[in-house]
C-alpha cells in the first residue's frame, strides 16, 4: 500500500472542508471520524442496509461504498444539515416523530437521506411507491409501517412542494 495522501476538498451541508486522507479511506469513515459528523450511521459496510446513505450532489448514495477521495469537488448532504438553522425539523423528520417512525433510530439518518430525496422527486407518492423506495433501507425495529405513514404524512404536509 502506498503511503500517499490525497487532498479532498468537499462541501458538506454547505460548509467547505479540506483534508489530506489515505486513498482507501471510506467516505463513511471520513464523514464520521475525520469530520466528526457522526449522524451518518454504519450498519453493514457492504452496501445493503442503507444506514450510511447520504446525498452526493443531491442524489442518495451509500457512503460505505465510496471512498473519501471521490467526494473531492462534490457536494455532500448529511442528516445534520436537514433541520433548519433555528432547529425546525424537516417535514419528514417531524412526521417520523409524529408517527413513531423510529425506535432505536440507527437506521433513521439513512432513511431520511433516501426519502427526502425521494419526496423531492415524487411529491405525491402512493404507498407502493413509498415502499419500493424504502426497500433499500433496512430497519430491524419498526416493521416499516410507521415509516411509510410518516412519508405519506410529510408528503401531504409539504403539499406537493419539493
Amino acid at each position, binding site marked *: *500500500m502506498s503511503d500517499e495522501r490525497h487532498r479532498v476538498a468537499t462541501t458538506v451541508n454547505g460548509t467547505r472542508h479540506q483534508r489530506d486522507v*489515505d486513498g*482507501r*479511506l471510506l467516505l463513511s469513515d471520513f464523514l*464520521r*471520524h475525520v469530520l*466528526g*459528523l*457522526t*449522524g*451518518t*450511521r*454504519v*450498519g*453493514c*459496510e*457492504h*452496501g*445493503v*442496509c442503507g*444506514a450510511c446513505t447520504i446525498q452526493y450532489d443531491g442524489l442518495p448514495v451509500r457512503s460505505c461504498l465510496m471512498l473519501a477521495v471521490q467526494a473531492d469537488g462534490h457536494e455532500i448532504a*448529511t*442528516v*445534520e444539515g*436537514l*433541520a433548519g438553522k433555528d432547529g425546525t*425539523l424537516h417535514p419528514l*423528520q417531524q412526521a*417520523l*416523530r*409524529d408517527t*413513531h417512525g*423510529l*425506535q*432505536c*433510530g*440507527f*437506521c*433513521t*439518518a439513512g432513511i*431520511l437521506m433516501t426519502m427526502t430525496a425521494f419526496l423531492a422527486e415524487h411529491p405525491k407518492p402512493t404507498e407502493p411507491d*413509498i*415502499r*419500493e423506495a*424504502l*426497500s*433499500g*433501507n*433496512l*430497519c*430491524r*425495529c*419498526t*416493521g*416499516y*409501517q*410507521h*415509516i*411509510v405513514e410518516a412519508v405519506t404524512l410529510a408528503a401531504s404536509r409539504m403539499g406537493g412542494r419539493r
Partner: protein
Amino acid sequence: MVTRYLGAPITRNEDARLLTGRALFVDDVNLPNLLHAAFLRSPHAHARIKSIDVATAKQRDGVIAVITAADMGDYWRPGPLLVPPPPIRDIVFNQCTQVPLAKDKVRHVGEPVAMVLAESRYLAEDALADIVVDYEALPAIVDLADGLKPDAARIHEDLAGNTAAHVRQTKGNYAEAVKRADLVIKRRFVYDRGASSPIETRGIVAEWDGKADRLTIWDTTQAPVVIRNGIAAMLGLSERQVRVIAPFIGGGFGPKIMMFYPEEVLVPWMAIKLSRPIKWIEDRLEHFFATTQERGQVHDAELAIGRDGKIIGVKDVFLHDTGAYDPYGLTLPINSQCTLLNAYVVPHYDSTFTAVFTNKPIATPYRGAGRQHGVFVMERLLDIAARQLGIDRIEIRRRNFIGPDQFPYNNEIIYQDFAPLEYDSGNYGPVLDKALELIGYDKFVRDPTARRTDDGKHVGIGVVFYIEGTGIGPYEGARIQVQSSGRVSLATGVGTQGQGHFTSFAQITADQLGVDVRDVDVVTGDTDQFYWGAGTFASRGAVVAGNAVNEAAKVVRQKILRAAAEHFECAEADIVIANGKASVAGVSERAIGLGELAQRANPLRGAVKPGTEPGLEATNYFGPARGATANGAHAMIIEVDPATMMIEIKKYVVVHDCGTVINPLIVEGQIHGGVAQGIGNAFYEQLAWDRDGQLLNASLADYLLPTALDVPHIDSAHTVTPSPLNPMGIKGAGEAGAIPVGALFAQAIEDALDLPRHGVEILEIPLSPNRLWELIGPHLDKKEAGSP
C-alpha cells in the same frame, strides 16, 4: 391524580436527538489518543491450535500490541454462568462457558484467537493478515443427532459427550392418560431461528483515567449494571471505579445482553495496561459469528386428544442446539418447554429435552427466546388434530382455552425464572373473537371465490394463538428528583435499545407529579446515574422498571404534598398538584412551583426537623413475585403463487393483551417490529451451515432481513386484562409480535395450497419459496400426472 399521559399515544422525548443525528451511539465516542482493536477469528468450526505466530504482525507500523491467550496469564478465565439451571429434579447440566481468546482449541467459526491493537482500524485489520496460526482441523459437529452419537468428536474434551443438558419436566401422568385418548398424533417438528441482526452491530470503547483511578466503558449492552459489576470483579477494581455507559443502542433484541463477550473482557483490560483508550466496533461479517444467535430445535411430539377435541396430554422429546458454549444456561429450552403448553388446559405433560453442544456460535435469547419453538409445536398439533377430528381449527382452540375464571392457572412445571409456571390472568376468548372479526374469518371461509385470484394465485387464511411469559424478576429501581428549575430528573438502571423508555417512564412520572411529560428528563443505562439493576430482557423494562418508576414517583408526590401543606399551613388533602405547581384547592393564587418547593426542601442555612431528608427525591425498587403472562392472536390472509411459491401477505391482524398500556403508540411499534422479525424467521432468514460448520450466507446480501416490501400493513387491536402481579397491571409487550408467526405461516400456507389434500403438512420453519417447492412440488406433480 389526573392521568393525562398514562395510556395516551405520546410522541417520544428522545426522537429529536435521534432525528437530527445528535444522539450518541458507541461508535460515535471519539477520544484523543484512541487505539483500535481488531480480532483474528477462527476459520475452522473445530480445530486444535498447534501454534500462533504474531511476530510479523507486531512489527507492522502502527501496531501497538498483539495479544493471544498465552499473554493473558491469570486474566484468562472462562466467562461466568449467567443463568444457573433451575431446581428441577434429576437435571443434568454441563457448564462450559466461553473463553476470551481460544487457547488450545477453537470450537466455532469466528471464535477469537488474537487481538491486535493499532493506531487505526484500517491498520489493525491489516495486521490480522500477518498472524500465522497452525490449526489441526477436527470433525465438526453440526447436526444435533450426530453430536450425540457415541463416536462423535467431543467439543469439550473433559465431558463424556456433547450433551450440554438433559431435563425432564412432567405434569400429571401422560403414560396412563394416553390410554384414554381417541386419537394420538405424532410428528417431528424442526424449528430453526437466526441472527437478531440489529442494524447497529456490537461495540465497546474503554478509557482508563489514571489520575482519577477510574475506568469508563461505553458498551452496546442491554445490562450496563451487570457489565460494570463483572468487569470490576475481573479487573480487581471497586464497582465505584468503573462507569459503564450504554448510550443510545441501535437495537438489542436479546444478544446484546450476553455476558461477557470476549471483547468486553479484553478491551477494558488492555485500555488499563496501555493507558490508552481503545475502541472496537464489530463489522457485519463478525456479527454473524461473534454475536450470539438462536438456532434449531427438533421436536418429536405427541398429542393425545379426545373425540370431543379436548387435549388429554402432550409428550415431547426435543433436542436443542446450544452452540459451542452454554453461558446462558437453560433459558432457551426451558422457555420452549414451558411455552409449548400455550393457552390451553393440558392435564398431562411429559417433556424431555437434551441440549447439545455444536460447533456453531453460542445460542442465547433473541426476541421470543425459545417461545416460538414451543408455540409452533402446539399450534401445529392442534391444526392436525382439528383436521383429523373434523373440528374447525378455531373451535378446537376455544374448547381447550384456559377459562377466564381459572386464573391464576398453575401449569405445575418450573419456568426460566425458577418460579412455578403460573399464568396470572387472561381472557382468551375475546382476544380470538376480535382477531377473527378483524381478519374477516367468517366471510373468508364462506366465500368460495376468496380462495383463488383471477391470475391463478391460491389464497389462504391462518389464525393462531400464543402466550408470552414477560416481566420476570428479579427487580429494577428508579430515582426521581425534582430539580430547582422545576424539571424532573429520572434515572434507572435498565438499558434502552429503542423501546421508548425515555417517554414511557416520563409519562408515568408526569402523571404522578403533575408536570408536563416534556419536563421529565430520563437517564437510562449509565451506572454513575443509577447503581442497581439487572437489565432489559424478557420484555421486562416497562413492567419491572415502569413499576419502580411509579413507586418512586408516588413517594415524591407525597413529599410534594407534605412540603406544600407546610408552606401554605394547610392540610395535605387540600393541596392540588398540577401544571408543575402545588396549590391550595380553590385558591389558585396560593400556588408554588415545584422547583421552588424543591429549593425550599433543601435549605442551605438554619435548622430542619430531625429526620428531614433534603430535596424532593425518592429512590424505589420493584420486584415482581413472578412474570406476568401476556397473550394474543395473529391472523393473516396470504396469497401463494403456485408456479413460483412466492407469497404476498394480503392482510395481517394482531390482537394483543399486554395488560395496562402505558403508551399505545410505542406498544404498536413493538408489535410491528416483532411481526417483521417473525416474518423474517418464518420465510426469509436462515443461517445456512455446511457440513464443516461454515456459515454460507454471512452477509446482509445473503441473509435476508425483511424489507418494506416484505412486511405488510399490520392492523392491531388490544384488549386489557391487567396483571395482578404489579400495581400498574402491566405485562410486557416486547417479544409478543415475533412469537406465533411461524405457526401462522405454516397454517395459512397449508390452507392456501390445500396441502392436507395432497398429503403434505408443514412441520418446519423457516420456509422459503425453494423449500416450499421441495415440500410441495412433487406432490402437485404426481396429482397432475394422475398417479395416486
